[in-house]
């Protein structure tokens, strides 16, 4: 067991750091979060810069256009990018983290040739059409129907929580192709071009006041059968193959972002007048911040553990669940402390003056997104209880 970089890793880190120091300052100022075309342009500009420098798809296999770096180097990439305050993956999230890896594992050579490069260059933006109003934690109960009509599927239904749908070129879509089979056995995975007739995108406002995701209404959308990835009715397995592609780095950007927010909160507490001194002089508050910092350090170490295991063949069952539910809890705790520091200034949802007060409130609300999206904390608890601890299933 060791934490220091190997010689090769140290060299990778040093070269990357040098490149980031030159590249990041050339970026224009970030767009308004509500300006979706602006966000797409900004995020894909950065992706193109990464691509040209050889840092696109760091963890993707080299034969599919990636860098083929080790999981440790992927972690170093994410760590250095966050430290350099480089843009995060942004609108490239679904393509790079899920759709691309799925195509690598299950796509035909034609599908791979058509899509993978565009994901890496930033030219193709993807969104995810998995969840439905009636299929959340029980995703496999999804009902969006695909009926075969010659060499097309005719797809009708409704999807929800579709991030980046407003600017996406393609959607990874789960549809029901067999209504009689058991729920996991009648699902297929389709590539849906977002410019097909019959697709309506309705932005969905979040508690943060932004349209971070959307609903998709699909009305007899005709999708070529050649856009199916994997066999018909094998879509559930296809969806889950990417789980083994994920090597514990899924939350690195978020975790480092939260660490930055904590640093800002310490600064805020040290400037905020309270009693005869500042909020930072409050022993209870200060120790609570110390405990949250300890948790963030621990989650960073947990990430390194998971990446280390992933590099050896696979993360232990339950590690991802334990990480995610713990991370959600610590984001909430940090937000609770932020509200104690902000006190009455928490009535303003935007930054006041020089202080990044609004950012603290936004981050507090983000705790809900972490604890709900991608499997609620309660679902993670069920996974741990049944698959790790071996407790009996309830049903």
């Amino acid at each position: 067991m060791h934490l220091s970089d190997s010689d090769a890793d140290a060299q990778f880190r040093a070269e990357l750091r040098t490149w980031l120091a030159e590249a990041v300052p050339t970026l224009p100022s970030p767009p308004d979060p509500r300006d979706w075309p602006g966000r797409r342009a900004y995020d894909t500009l950065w992706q193109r810069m990464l691509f040209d420098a050889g840092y696109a798809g760091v963890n993707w296999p080299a034969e599919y256009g990636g860098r083929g770096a080790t999981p440790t180097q992927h972690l170093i990439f994410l760590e250095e990018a966050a430290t350099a305050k480089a843009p995060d993956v942004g609108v490239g999230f679904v393509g790079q983290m899920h759709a691309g890896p799925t195509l690598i594992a299950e796509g035909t050579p034609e599908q791979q040739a058509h899509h993978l490069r565009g994901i890496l260059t930033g030219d193709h933006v993807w969104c995810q059409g998995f969840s439905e109003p009636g299929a959340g934690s029980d995703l496999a109960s999804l009902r969006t129907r695909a009926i075969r009509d010659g060499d097309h599927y005719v797809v009708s239904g409704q999807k929800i929580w579709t991030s980046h749908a407003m600017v996406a070129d393609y959607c990874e879509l789960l549809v029901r192709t067999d209504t009689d089979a058991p729920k996991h056995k009648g699902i297929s995975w389709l590539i849906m071009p977002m410019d097909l007739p019959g697709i309506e995108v309705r932005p969905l406002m979040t508690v943060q006041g932004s349209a971070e995701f959307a609903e998709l209404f699909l009305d007899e959308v005709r999708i070529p059968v050649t856009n199916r990835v994997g066999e018909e009715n094998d879509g559930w397995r296809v969806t889950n193959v990417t789980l083994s592609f994920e090597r514990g780095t899924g939350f690195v950007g978020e975790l480092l972002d939260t660490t930055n927010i904590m640093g800002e909160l310490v600064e805020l507490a040290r400037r905020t007048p309270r009693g005869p001194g500042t909020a930072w002089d409050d022993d209870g508050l200060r120790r609570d911040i110390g405990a949250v910092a300890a948790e963030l350090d621990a989650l960073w170490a947990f990430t390194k553990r998971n990446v280390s295991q992933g590099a050896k063949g696979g993360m232990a069952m339950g590690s991802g669940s334990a990480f995610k539910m713990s991370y959600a809890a610590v984001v909430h705790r940090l937000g609770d402390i932020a509200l104690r520091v902000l006190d009455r200034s928490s009535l303003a949802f935007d930054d006041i003056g020089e202080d990044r007060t609004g950012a603290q409130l936004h981050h507090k609300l983000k705790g809900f997104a972490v604890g709900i999206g991608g499997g609620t904390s309660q679902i993670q608890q069920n996974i741990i209880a049944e698959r790790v601890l071996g407790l009996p299933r309830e049903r």
Partner: protein
Amino acid sequence: MDLDPSAEQRELQEMITRFSLDRFPTDIVRAAAEPGRFDRAAWRELAELGTFGIAVDEEAGGVGLRWIDAVLVHESLGAALTPGPLVAAALAAGLVDGVLDGSVVPAIVERPTHGPAFVEHLTSADVLLVIDQDGVSSIDPATVNTRALPTPTDPATPVSIIEELPSGDRLADADTARRWRLLGSLLASAQLVGIAEGSTTLAVAYANEREQFGRPIGSFQGLKHLLADCYARTEVARSALWAAGVLVDEPEAGDLMRAVAGTRVLAARAATENAKTGLQVHGGMGFTWEVDAHLFLKRAWVLETAFGSVDEAAEAVAASLEPGSISS
């Protein structure tokens, strides 16, 4: 970077676990604090496995491994509720003759700023080691006026009170004292992580076996979520622990002081919360002396105060966040 134990390290842990459960079964553990119960032969056998000299150089008679290995060993010792002055022996093995092979049994205490000193395992100790700001001193327990408590909180940890701690003979300097405090906190945290896991394992076994309303109580989400929380607390604390353990061996790779302090906060929380959950999951039986759940809780309470409090540790982490601190 590799924060996952090797196969050899896992085997080392399993060996310690097997020995502890075999040589210190529950009925021995439960009575360990009673007068005359300390088993010197078993202690020597534990020493012969290399338990105390894991991180001591081979030339000095140790195993010659690293502190992360000692951390892993103490995790297993904690999970098995192994009795005895384990942290004291690991700290003193490189300095006090006879500790390494188990022939000399040490006790360690930090000199209190006020009030009497509460010393664990003094009743079986051949030497009392005192840590203070200026260094480490040794005292012959026979020369000190001590009072063994008839009812220590943990039935496996005998405790004595010393009203007036003499100054003793200086053994090592202030740097050694600081190092012992740091390593002592870390090894106690390692045992706390072991306790967090051990109490969960016990509770999970009961939840699988105990039936109410016609099915195992572990099938109810109310219990599942309590136990899943235990698992998550253990794994988060264990991650912090392993990073801190590696940093002892590679101090240039991070902030060791902060890592040890942070580990203490999380390990103490994991151990006490999981042990409390363990009692709750056992229902009425959890409130009885005969079920082992309380042994985990009480050992956690003992270790929680060893080599600095949780509040001090949280304070130390907070201090590391201030601009100009060594960490930032």
